[in-house]
């Protein structure tokens, strides 16, 4: 099953409430996905810094003194904010590749959730309300965000099997459905040198989009070609630095509802997820068409 929510703000006044609105939408989708949950939140890019969000099974040891060790190795100034099992490292955007390299050397067990100018990804196993509370999602502000509640079908219930999946700097993907050609596509992508960590079908979808974009496709083109190359059921919600995009497979049996007002564009697997948004009674509410790529950007 799985539940997806997304919120793209047009009205800057709502930005401080993004985390609160998004976590409420996420919790409403609990019965579509009680196994695990995750969110990607795009914060305000005020101080022109870059961010890497990392996850550890052993946060108290792994995060302690991490910024000093990175600095000692690379000379790069890094600040660290820890939130439960996750930590956000901030540095100059240009230093992101060097810090990633250093992390591989200093803490090879750390998992990189996301990297970019504004994106932060948090995901864990557990009920959506517990995951949202653990990372204090409701206190976060930002311009847009997407969230996912997972009912696992294609691979184990683990942190790395939870969504969103990062597909590149400031890009991520959440998925409702199941891909049926993920094994053959994984083999093909691995032969091309693409790193795929888990046996999860959505990670293959994310890796596919990343690969296509490395080959020169825009995100829109990559989504268009996914309609040709991915077999199975999918409603995808893709986050970028500027906004988000939606695409459904041609059969479109995985549900999707969108709502738009002057203040926001919202996505929900069901209308239930949208009912408490401001002005929803007057919003334009519709279902995205199958095999059609939609995009909203700031």
């Amino acid at each position, binding site marked *: 099953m799985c539940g997806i929510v997304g919120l793209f703000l047009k009205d800057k006044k709502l930005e401080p409430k993004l985390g609160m609105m998004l976590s409420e939408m996420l919790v409403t989708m609990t019965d579509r996905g009680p196994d695990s949950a995750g969110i990607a939140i795009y914060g305000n890019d005020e101080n022109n810094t870059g961010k890497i969000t990392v996850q550890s099974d052993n946060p108290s040891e792994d995060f302690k003194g991490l910024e000093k060790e990175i600095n000692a190795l690379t000379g790069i100034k890094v600040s660290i904010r820890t939130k439960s099992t996750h930590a956000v490292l901030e540095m100059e955007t240009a230093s992101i590749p060097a810090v990633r390299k250093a992390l591989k050397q200093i803490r090879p067990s750390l998992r990189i959730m996301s990297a970019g100018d504004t994106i932060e990804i948090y995901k864990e196993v557990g009920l959506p309300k517990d995951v949202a509370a653990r990372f204090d999602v409701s206190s976060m502000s930002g311009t847009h965000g997407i969230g996912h509640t997972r009912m696992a079908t294609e691979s184990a219930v683990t942190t790395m099997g939870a969504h969103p999946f990062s597909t590149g700097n400031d890009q991520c993907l959440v998925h409702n459905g199941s891909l049926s050609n993920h094994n053959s596509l994984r083999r093909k992508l691995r032969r091309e040198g693409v790193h795929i960590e888990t046996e999860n079908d959505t990670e293959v979808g994310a890796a596919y989009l990343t690969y296509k974009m490395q080959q020169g496709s825009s995100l829109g083109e990559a989504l268009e070609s996914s309609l040709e190359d991915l077999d199975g059921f999918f409603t995808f919600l893709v986050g970028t630095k500027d906004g988000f995009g939606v695409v459904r497979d041609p059969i479109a*049996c995985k*549900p999707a509802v969108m709502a738009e007002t002057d203040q926001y564009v919202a996505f929900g697997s*069901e*209308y*239930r997820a949208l*009912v408490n948004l401001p002005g929803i009674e007057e919003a334009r*509410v*519709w279902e995205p068409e*199958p095999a059609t790529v939609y995009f909203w950007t700031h």
Partner: protein
Amino acid sequence: MQTFDLEAQGLRELNSTLHAQVDETNQTSWEITNPKGSHAIAVGLDAPIEVNIKGSTGYYCGGMNKQATINVSGSAGPGTAENMMSGKIVIDGDASQYAGATGHGGLLVIKGNASSRCGISMKGINIVVHGNIGHMSAFMAQSGNLVVCGDAGDALGDSCYEARLFVRGSVKSLGADCEEKEMRPEHIKILKELLAEADSDAKPEEFKRYGSARNLYNFDVDNATAY
């Protein structure tokens, strides 16, 4: 009129209260507030009562309905009026996928658009959609009438049996074994009655009729190698 606040009183309470209504009930008019997209609102009713739902509903609203008249003032989620037996369900807004699926009888009216698979496997229900319908509608439809005042999506009436499909606008594509049929006086008569009952001012003469070409009814040995 009885008023029921779904948010305060809960779904089980609502449905068991409505199920308790019998043919002779004197509580014939119900208003349900705060539906907020909840699932399975007013399913399995079997009494000549009127239920007005103030807002939008989620999955399976009015499923298995017998006798009752159900009005939804907003839009409706997937599987609305699924397997309806009799009665009338009116959706003021849009309906999501597989509205009226497998319905045996009664009338489903959608005043907005219906999504994909509208009337899939319908078995005698009448469905009138004021707007458009999505792809794979009336797939394997067996009997009853599907009336579409707007346009139909891809693969209309794929593998259908004896249901009548009436479309006023364009049909993006017909499904396997579905073809346009002659519109005879008896069809105009059926349409006229259904449109009147569904509160539509569309003219029966503006519609085209589609139905089964009946080529899939019997196994053709020439196709044996196709499997």
